């Protein structure tokens, strides 16, 4: 219950932040840019629009996470606003879950708003067959952003805003290349390969959430894929938030 209250407050704060408005404007500009570039895409204009539109959701979401999420807990400790919450019957885990849920909800709303803009654009251009794949693409982008948000909150609970931003970017990039890391591991001796495989298992498997190519060709991801991505996101977010809670539980709030 308290986590829900904190999530609602975090969402309300983020909604009033100019950063969110700027992000939505940036999304609009990105979509408009695809329309200007479409004639240069040699017949692949539709594909370009969908690909850039869905990538834009991830990119703008990641930017918001880096600007807001990575400093979220650290800033609260630094500004001492956290005292107002933790001096009440609020468990530290509820606080972290609430902060994560509030920012994740903000990112979901942003993703849905940008997805709606993309759908509107395609409807105007008469490409209704892409609506379901785009909706699925937005869902996957939301899952991906939720995972990255959990990572940002985890680092924010133990580090400074700058360092947690760097760690989050690092883990995001490593996550994007997790498949390459596994392929790379096979070229090394067994001991190093084991380390590479372990690293690839620990970093978030972000390619799992990338269905942009499928959506651009009006194809839907399978039910198994959707279920796997959903379960993976839930498990990864839970693990990151558990680690964050363990770190915050023992931390002195000076």
């Amino acid at each position, binding site marked *: 219950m308290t986590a829900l209250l904190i999530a609602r407050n975090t969402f*309300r704060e983020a909604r009033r932040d100019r950063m969110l408005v700027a992000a939505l404007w940036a999304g609009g500009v990105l979509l408009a840019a695809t329309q200007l570039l479409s004639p240069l895409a040699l017949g692949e204009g539709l594909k370009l629009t969908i690909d850039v539109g869905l990538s834009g959701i991830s990119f703008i979401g990641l930017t918001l996470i880096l600007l807001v999420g990575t400093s979220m807990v650290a800033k609260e400790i630094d500004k001492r*606003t956290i*005292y107002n919450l*933790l*001096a009440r*019957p609020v468990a530290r885990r509820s606080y972290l879950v609430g902060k994560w849920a509030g920012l994740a909800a903000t990112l979901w709303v942003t993703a849905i708003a940008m997805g709606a803009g993309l759908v509107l654009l395609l409807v105007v251009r008469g490409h209704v067959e892409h609506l379901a794949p785009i909706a699925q693409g937005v869902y996957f982008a939301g899952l991906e952003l939720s995972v990255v948000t959990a990572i940002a909150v985890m680092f924010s609970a133990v580090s400074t805003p700058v360092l947690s931003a760097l760690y989050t970017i690092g883990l995001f990039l490593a996550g994007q290349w997790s498949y390459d890391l596994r392929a790379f591991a096979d070229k090394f001796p067994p001991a190093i390969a084991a380390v590479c495989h372990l690293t690839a298992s620990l970093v978030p498997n972000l390619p799992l959430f990338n269905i942009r190519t499928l959506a651009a060709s009006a194809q839907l991801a399978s039910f198994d894929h959707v279920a796997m991505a959903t379960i993976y996101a839930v498990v990864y977010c839970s693990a990151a938030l558990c680690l964050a809670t363990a770190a915050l539980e023992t931390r*002195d*709030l000076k």
Partner: protein
Amino acid sequence: MITDEHGSAPDARAPGTPAGAAVSARGLTKHYRHPWTLKLTRGLTDLNLEVGRGEVFGYLGPNGAGKTTTIKLLIGLLRPTSGEAWLLGKPIGSEASRRRIGFLPEQPYFYDSLTGREYLEFAAQLSGLGGQEASTRARHWLGRVGLGERPRLALRKYSKGMLQRIGLAAALIHDPELVILDEPMSGLDPFGRRDVRELILEQRDRGTTVLFSSHILPDVEMLCDRVGVVLGGKLVRTATVNELVASQQQRVEVRCVGAPLIEVPARWRGRIERVELPEGTTFVLADEREVNDVLAWLLANGATLRAVTPQRASLEDFFLSVAESEGQSRRMA
């Protein structure tokens, strides 16, 4: 157990059953170790304290003495190095211990984008009140602390005094049984201080236990049933304000005329201060027991008495003397 300069325990009421007291601490200690240099800083050492229910307890000490460390330990923001403590019978650090307490941090900070009313509703809900009840109380408390006229003003536009008031309202909105205030008068103008004093007195009348730290000794003297003095991370004395003040040597001021040429005998030098004023001479006696001898000596030398006024020692006098004696004993050690 720490003993004070009289050889007695700092808290005359030794900690008993935790459930019976509003605040109870046994051997509560907080030391910090620097992560790189490993240098140890003693924030608070072996605190034994008991604050009874319904009591207004003032926690005094200079900057860096350990007041805020104690409060943060009680609230659960810091983890103790050793020792244990209870709030309203519940062990500190547990959610249950914070369920019936109100807390105002020193220089409170809030979520800038919220309005005063939204913040109070949020605070009330976090303390377990339902949405409708939280809304009703938010309106009431906003008016109670004098901010009711602009409920939609964002907190970022609040002045320091307004923030202190909204912080107090948030601390009291859920009718807590124990209120812990860290420097509640800090940075307030005289009107703000008066309002805070009234709120504390109102809580006392309701039977709420109030523990607050302060530098402003006249306020502490006016409000507190008992005070504790913390110096260098150690609680050196707890007593009622009257006990503390009575334990101080009473000074006496003797005003007279016709004494400008009388010389103070050598035996009293250093114990009698002489002040020449246009309207006469004032002798300030450090020890009231000498008043009869001094009066006899003045009358014998032809002076005319105008007034004999006992000077009641203030809490400030007590505080300064304790701080100085502690400083001296440490230097000697």
